[in-house]
């Protein structure tokens, strides 16, 4: 074992409360007290590991510092992916940091030190919920959640996919919560608090699993932190500060029954931090020794207030090593490198220590595969995802495959190189809209937009030189060297006044608040005398002061009054706009109509107005009551509005109704003899169902299309799409016509089959572009009617347990891809139930989950197919294929490919269709192949189909 104290890792003597090594091992973060704020520093790991790197001045030691926390930082933790860093501090905030790759190194403006931030880490989320200091934060395995605990006695679970959403607040501790740890398989989270308890919470329902108090009964006093840890095999949970026979211990809690029979003894003062090595080890096989397989064991480091550190192996009764007096003050945090051979320890005394072990000392670490095997065999579920990294030994048999893999790596390399380049040479990117920053700077004064506010103040619109987090038009203004100037401070006689100035640099706002008669109202008693003096001066000053400064008088109230009404106006403008549009622009292609639902009060049918009562039927749908007037927007591109005015008194006491339609600025209007109930339209037709059970249909440019339709009962809901008209009438039957072809697509189809329950209603109806009617029912189910099969098909069910159990998130190409728009997405709603999925994730045996996921994905594909939504079919097909690839379902994958490829040689008896919902199957297969190529296990399948596609191409 080697021990090193890198003195350059420090916070200028201020305490370091937390340390965490990045998962890739190249850097680490420290958190603690800064000058007068909290401080997070990211350090380079290389100079710690290698002496020559430490001496090499070209290798930066500090990569970035962030002093954005207002008060001391108690905890820093990298996400498992290494993408994010979370920090929590006494300012009650948790900040989540992400590296901004596009900005080059920059110095802090005004700081004299040459210490540039080599890397730029930007705060992407600030999580506010705690009402007290945040003591510990922890990312769940797989980074789905972030947990934080605080002196406000709570633990908060954040949705790490969607900050700052809070999934749960765990209440139950009656003291300051000072440590958190996740179960490595994600089933539990444990917290330890000053209330002399350690609580284990279930992630399934965020309820308390158990509260352990016995080992903590004797605990007195307070330790600053209680960082507990869970062993990587999941078997043991080890607490911080516990007591056994009035001696401080770290209590071992067994997962099985939460038994507390063992502990780590020997520290003379309270244990502040326990940290398990992320690796599981097995005995190193020595030559000649017996080859009987030994049990895998874990390794654990324990730090204490007594300033010593002990490292334990769970297979030994005594500690592997104890280092006394490693620091001058209490140990605060420990972090292992991912390879399990090094640890960083930090202390309240403001220093860190690095320990380097050899494999001889700790043992042979198990590979990730073996580790996930242990998890799988113990818990039936492993979190490890199959990646090519786990198949490094597989031989690539096919040159195509090799090419593909190399291409992938190259792309990765290019990407890295690009980011490196952008990072190292900010000038490359110093372009804004094709103009170099230099050019812009030359003319900035002339070009910048300057306006006057209502009260005559100057207002400059700043030139945006880079947007955040887009990474495209990146510039680095900070890299522009300040214009050089000769030093003017040469005469020694001038030193005297400078001292007087020094205070002026830092004194706050005196000059600003002291101007203008407004200060007369200052009620600050201590300053009154001084103010009187000042005001005397001011009066004279105001008279003859520069023009420009005179308008700073009363500036605050004025600027306020000018900005507030403006905002209000904006707001009004927005509302007006919203009213006009009626519904979000996004879905203009598919407008689900829920008109009748908008005014439930008006739903009761006006019986007097009905000429004939509906035939006696078990089912009766509500019909809209005639309104005096209404307007709606049918589509925004081309813009199409319909306005309806009922009971327009015409000559001779006749009452007429007017229908007005505005299409791309052109208007037409017509009158109808009966009152118009609702209206609907599409690019092709405009329809208005009327009171007397008639329907008038017009071309959208105004000509009457057909004589009025006539039904047996009044219309309930109504929708148009393209040439299709869909009508749901109150007798609970459905019609769909194609007015172009002038045929009925669906005739008087009863909803009785699907509206089985008594109080079920239709909440939404819509038509796809292919004229397939879909309806959402109030019980969360959605059906579409398949005219060719003449059946109702269930396409979506909100309560579907399949949807809730299915876990295909690993197979999603990216976060954004979850948002696939189309009729299916509209029906099923965009509410991301990933949170719900995740909570189920660990309660379902893996096998069952695989099956449900497959079933779910298959049903999604089928639904997309039924709705003839090609876009969504492709989306789900790709997810399905990716899932098959990830989970290794070769048989199904082969079936899928076979169907997509079809017969290579023409045969007359073939039933194979070359397209599916308008997509060419072979094109789909081409898209699938790269996905298949990601798993080396399927390289033969890849080759097989690649070759066959090539043959087809040659033909």
């Amino acid at each position, binding site marked *: 074992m080697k021990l090193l104290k890198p003195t350059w890792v420090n916070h200028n003597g201020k305490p370091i409360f937390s340390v965490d090594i990045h998962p890739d091992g190249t850097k680490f973060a420290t958190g603690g007290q800064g000058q*007068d704020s909290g401080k997070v520093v990211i350090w380079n790991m290389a100079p710690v590991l290698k002496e020559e790197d430490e001496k090499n001045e070209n290798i930066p030691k500090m990569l970035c510092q962030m*002093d*954005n926390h*207002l008060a001391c930082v108690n905890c820093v933790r990298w996400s498992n992916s290494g993408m994010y860093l979370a920090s929590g501090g006494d300012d009650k905030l948790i900040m989540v940091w992400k590296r901004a790759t596009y900005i080059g190194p*920059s110095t*802090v*403006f*005004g*700081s*004299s030190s040459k210490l540039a931030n080599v890397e730029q880490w*930007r705060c992407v989320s600030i999580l506010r*919920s705690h*009402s007290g200091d945040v003591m510990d934060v922890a990312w769940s395995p797989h980074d789905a959640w972030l947990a934080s605990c605080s002196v406000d006695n709570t633990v908060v679970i954040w949705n790490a996919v969607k900050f700052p959403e809070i999934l749960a607040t765990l209440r139950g501790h009656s003291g300051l919560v000072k440590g958190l740890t996740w179960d490595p398989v994600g089933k539990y989270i444990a917290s330890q608090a000053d209330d002399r308890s350690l609580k284990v919470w279930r992630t399934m329902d965020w309820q308390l699993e158990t509260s352990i108090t016995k080992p903590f009964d004797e605990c007195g006093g307070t330790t600053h932190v209680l960082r507990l840890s869970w062993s990587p095999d999941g078997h043991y949970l080890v607490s911080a500060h516990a007591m056994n026979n009035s001696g401080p211990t770290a209590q071992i809690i067994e997962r099985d029954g939460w038994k507390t029979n063992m502990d780590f003894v020997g520290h003379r003062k309270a244990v502040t931090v326990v940290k398990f090595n992320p690796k599981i080890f097995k005995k190193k096989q020595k030559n000649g020794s017996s080859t009987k397989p030994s049990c895998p064991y874990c390794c654990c480091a324990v730090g204490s207030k007594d300033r010593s550190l002990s490292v334990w192996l769970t297979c030994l009764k005594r500690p592997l090593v104890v280092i006394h007096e490693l620091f001058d003050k209490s140990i605060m945090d420990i972090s292992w490198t991912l390879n399990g051979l090094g640890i960083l320890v930090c202390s309240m005394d403001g220093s860190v220590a690095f320990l380097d072990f050899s494999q001889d000392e700790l043992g042979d670490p198990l590979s990730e595969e073996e580790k996930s095997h242990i998890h799988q065999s113990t818990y039936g579920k492993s979190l490890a995802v199959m990646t090519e990294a786990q198949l490094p030994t597989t031989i690539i048999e096919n040159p195509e495959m090799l090419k593909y893999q190399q291409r992938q790596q190259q792309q990765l390399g290019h990407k890295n190189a690009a980011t490196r380049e952008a990072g190292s040479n900010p000038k490359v990117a110093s372009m804004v809209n094709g103009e170099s920053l230099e050019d812009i*700077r030359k003319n*900035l004064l002339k070009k910048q937009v300057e306006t006057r506010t209502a009260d005559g*103040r*100057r*207002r*400059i619109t*700043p030139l*945006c*030189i880079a*947007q*955040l987090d887009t990474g495209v038009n990146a*510039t680095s*203004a*900070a890299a*522009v060297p*300040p*214009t*050089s*100037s*000769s*030093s*003017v*401070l040469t005469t020694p006689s*001038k030193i005297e*006044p400078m001292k007087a*100035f020094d205070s*002026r*640099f*830092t004194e*706050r706002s005196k*000059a*600003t608040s*002291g101007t203008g008669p407004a*200060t007369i*109202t*200052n009620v600050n008693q201590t300053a009154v005398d001084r103010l009187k003096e*000042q005001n005397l*001066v001011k009066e004279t000053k105001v008279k*003859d002061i*520069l023009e*420009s*400064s005179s308008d*700073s008088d009363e*500036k605050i*109230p004025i600027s*306020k009054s000018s*900005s507030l009404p403006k905002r209000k106006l904006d707001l009004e403008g927005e509302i007006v706009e919203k009213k006009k549009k009626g519904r979000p622009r996004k879905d203009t292609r598919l407008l689900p109509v829920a008109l009748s639902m908008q005014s439930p009060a008006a739903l009761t049918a006006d019986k007097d107005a009905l000429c004939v009562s509906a035939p006696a039927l078990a089912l009766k749908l509500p019909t809209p009551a005639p309104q005096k007037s209404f307007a709606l927007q049918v589509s925004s591109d081309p813009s199409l509005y319909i306005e309806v005015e009922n009971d327009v008194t015409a000559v001779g006491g006749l009452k007429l109704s007017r229908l007005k339609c505005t299409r791309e600025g052109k208007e037409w209007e017509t009158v109808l003899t009966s009152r118009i109930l609702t209206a609907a339209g599409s690019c092709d037709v405009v329809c208005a169902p009327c009171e007397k059970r008639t329907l008038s249909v017009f071309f959208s440019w105004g000509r009457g299309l057909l004589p009025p339709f006539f039904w047996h009962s009044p219309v309930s809901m109504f929708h148009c799409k393209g040439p299709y008209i869909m009508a749901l009438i109150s007798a609970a039957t459905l019609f769909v016509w194609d007015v172009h072809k002038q045929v009925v697509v669906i005739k008087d189809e009863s909803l009785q089959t699907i509206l089985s329950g008594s109080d079920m209603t239709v909440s939404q109806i819509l038509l796809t572009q292919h004229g397939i009617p879909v309806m959402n029912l109030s019980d969360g189910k959605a059906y579409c009617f398949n005219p060719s099969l003449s059946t109702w098909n269930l396409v979506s069910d909100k309560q579907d347990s399949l949807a809730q159990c299915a876990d295909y998130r690993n197979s999603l190409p990216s976060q954004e891809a979850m948002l696939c728009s189309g009729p299916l997405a509209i029906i099923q709603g965009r509410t991301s139930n990933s949170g719900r999925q995740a909570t189920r994730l660990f309660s379902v045996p893996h096998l069952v989950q695989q099956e449900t996921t497959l079933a779910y994905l298959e049903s999604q594909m089928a639904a997309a197919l039924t709705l003839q939504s090609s876009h969504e079919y492709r989306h789900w097909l790709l997810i399905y294929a990716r899932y098959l690839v990830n989970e290794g379902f070769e048989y199904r994958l082969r079936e899928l490919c076979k169907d997509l490829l079809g017969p290579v040689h023409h045969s007359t008896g073939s039933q194979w269709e070359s397209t599916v919902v308008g997509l060419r199957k072979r094109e789909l297969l081409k898209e699938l192949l790269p996905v298949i190529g990601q798993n080396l296990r399927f390289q033969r399948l890849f080759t097989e189909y690649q070759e066959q596609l090539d043959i087809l191409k040659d033909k």
Partner: protein
Amino acid sequence: MAKVSVLNVSVLENPSPFHSPFQFEISFECSEALADDLEWKIIYVGSAESEEFDQILDSVLVGPVPAGRHMFVFQADAPNASLIPETDAVGVTVVLITCTYHGQEFIRVGYYVNNEYTNPELRENPPLKPDFSQLQRNILASNPRVTRFHINWDSTTDKLEDIENQDPVLSLGLPLSCPPTKGLDLPDCAPSIIPENSMDCI
């Protein structure tokens, strides 16, 4: 945390005659879009001895400020020479650039300014009454002194009782920050009006 951080200030047209306008090119970064404008000011310190000779050369609103990096040139007329004490006309003084949001100052950049005669004769024997037209202003651009203050960036509408450090004019209609009491009921606000002078300077 501060929503706006100043990345750089370049002094343009420097050195220049005393009566020519000041020009600063300011680039700053904003982490979240601001609801209201920033207010920038240039303050010329007429005399080191007393604040009463401070002149606000100009104040300007800058906005709208979406998230991102921005720059603008702040130009302000030269100070009114008649307001500068004759004894302080020649020699070293200070020009300050301050920025406030919702009336709270969060950054102050100070530069030393040296005013001297270019003519060697005048330099040797300065006239009793300073001849400003002959003075050259030289701003020590390489040595800015930056002071940052923590302020409350969120216009939380929490009621305020304790506004001791606040200009009462500012607080009339603008609920700005929270009481500095370490209350547990206001998780959103930082104790921001306690003057926390973070010195980032040399």
